[in-house]
């Protein structure tokens, strides 16, 4: 078992075009470090020195990790993590 991570179009150049990749770790920070080891460069697109980048949203089983524990959020095998850029969506 692993953690499934869904990758947005914008970051697929790092995953060889894959829409979803597997990763491991006990926290989101560890998971991102693992992703970066497998797909070099992706970590820097997700994080800056203050944590998640402003226009990056990460959801653990559909819940925004900023309201869980940020990069310290615990993750475990079987979880689903979705990365999306922050957009205006369909608002109004």
């Amino acid at each position, binding site marked *: 078992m692993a953690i499934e991570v869904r990758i947005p179009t914008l970051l697929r150049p790092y995953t060889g075009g894959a829409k979803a990749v597997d990763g491991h770790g006990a926290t989101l920070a560890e998971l991102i470090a693992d992703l970066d080891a497998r797909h070099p460069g992706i970590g820097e697109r997700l994080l800056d020195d203050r944590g998640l980048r402003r*226009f990056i949203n990460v959801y653990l089983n559909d*819940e925004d990790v*900023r309201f869980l524990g940020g990069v310290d959020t615990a993750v475990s095998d079987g979880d689903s993590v979705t990365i*999306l850029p922050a*957009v*205006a*969506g*369909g*608002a*109004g």
Partner: protein
Amino acid sequence: MRYESLIDSVGSTPLIGLPRLSPSPRVRLWAKLEDRNPTGSVKDRAALAMVRSAEEAGTLHRGMTLLEPTSGNTGISLAMVAKLRGYRLVVVMPENTSAERRELLTMWGAEIVSSPAAGGSNEAVRVAKSLAAEHPDWVMLYQYGNPANAGAHYATTGPEILADLPTITHFVAGLGTTGTLMGVGRFLREKVPGVAVVAAEPRYGELVYGLRNLDEGFVPELYDPAVLTTRYSVGPHDALRRTRQLLEQEGIFAGISTGAILHAALGVAAKAEQAGQRADIAFIVCDGGWKYLSTGAYSGTLDEAEDAIEGQLWA
């Protein structure tokens, strides 16, 4: 109820119990029917408040032109207010929005500038900002950053909900401009200790997230995460399933964004039920389903409906 004009009838919408969808008598769901506003959506509140605020500030006078980026409902609300108050309205709308929204805007007298489908409302905002720069005499109310948007919900939606449901424990609404959640959330947090403010954010098809680079990302200026308790991402399958469930079990014919909100509300309800806690959960019905009939959301199987709305801005 009697009102002096249509504009005066904005708000004071009913709060409806959902006995069939509520998990138990201790954990209850309540739907705030914002489709009962004059143009059929929650956006009438923000549109009216933004126009009034600009009039009071002296920046908007009869005969002037309003400009707004909108995927539909705000444009329709502004078109109604603009017609009654004597303004011209230009809306910038992504081309991947439903046909009904375009027809309604045209009927109410708005002029439509289309923005590219890729990038969704991000592109509409960008195009509107460049039009505003070209036409300094036009007034862009800018729902994403106008405090009167959230202010309308702080002053009206929030107090209405609390008056009807003093035992409220959770408020759930859609996250777009963030105006509803910021306004109602702030009001409830001041009045109801421990109240949970829950955002349901629609998750669209890939086209909508098709930014060229991350610097083009967008967070509405109104957004303050400190007002929220949590935020859920809801995909089209769950949104459509709940939209149909609301109709089948409670008889409420709502738009697809309401399905996404109901999905988050039912998740919150299930958690409260499991924990053995009492809960009164109020959520927003943003609009009725009428404007989305042509999308195929209500016909065929769920999978067919999901395919049909792929790539569209369904909320």
